[in-house]
């Protein structure tokens, strides 16, 4: 875990890679998350909806990013976490999650840092863009 008192703008605090997403992972996440939308596990449903195959839950990808985030920042320090789902994450994607400090500021009586977050697949395509606010 990173010491948070000497953080400066431009520091890359978050960096983690994940194994390829497979169908088994999507089935497990369907149950584990309570998101039973068949589009992520039933190829017939996905095709009828106009997609070539099932694809990852956005929140599974955000869950990976959250994991990368709290590997680097103590969970008790996390104040906010937001993402935009930029592109669908396909089967086989190997995700890399990164976060860089963009701003240091004071809010609610504590020093805080804002991080810019991204998740990319192994072809470099951006899947998630987001931000987090952490207390220092």
């Amino acid at each position: 875990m990173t010491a948070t008192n000497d953080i400066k703008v431009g520091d890359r605090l978050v960096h983690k890679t994940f194994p390829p997403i497979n169908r088994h992972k999507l089935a497990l996440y369907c149950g584990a998350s309570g998101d039973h939308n068949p589009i992520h596990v039933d190829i017939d449903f996905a095709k009828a909806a106009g997609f070539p195959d099932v694809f990852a839950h956005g929140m599974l990808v955000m869950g990976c990013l959250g994991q990368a985030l709290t590997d680097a920042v103590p969970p008790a320090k996390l104040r906010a976490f937001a993402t935009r789902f930029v592109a669908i994450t396909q089967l086989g994607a190997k995700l890399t999650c990164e976060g860089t400090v963009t701003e240091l500021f004071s809010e609610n009586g504590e020093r805080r840092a804002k991080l810019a977050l991204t998740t990319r697949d192994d072809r470099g395509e951006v899947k998630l863009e987001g931000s987090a606010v952490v207390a220092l």
Partner: protein
Amino acid sequence: MVDQSAVGHRFAPVTARVEPGRLRYFLDTLGEQNPVYRDAGAARAAGFAGTPVPPTYLFCLEMMDAENPFEMLTALDIDLARVLHGEQSFAYHAPVLVGDTLTFRPHVASVTEKKGGALTLIAIDCEVTNQNGVHVADTSRTVVVRNG
């Protein structure tokens, strides 16, 4: 098609219990090995009074314990096959711990048309409180509906 008349619509509140077995299933699925989420001693050392949940787990709790997890879709007459998740945010005000009972109160915050009506973006904001009435978090999700 969903229009401005949906703004302000309140959905049924959801009461969800943070159960250790379900949380472990989530951690195992994501390959989450951080001891703070698995070990009470590590959680205490990290400043928590109990075992905390990972940052995105609030989203799951609301869906898991909703009587009708797709109420938003049926209430607004949206086809499940036509929705995508556009954005998600969490603001954390107080810890959420294993054993807590949370109440989620979601409502439609905004409806926005994009690409000449090809897409409708519906933002749903949700206040989360715990069994002691503490306001622990606010969440917001944007659902994208592919029209036509």
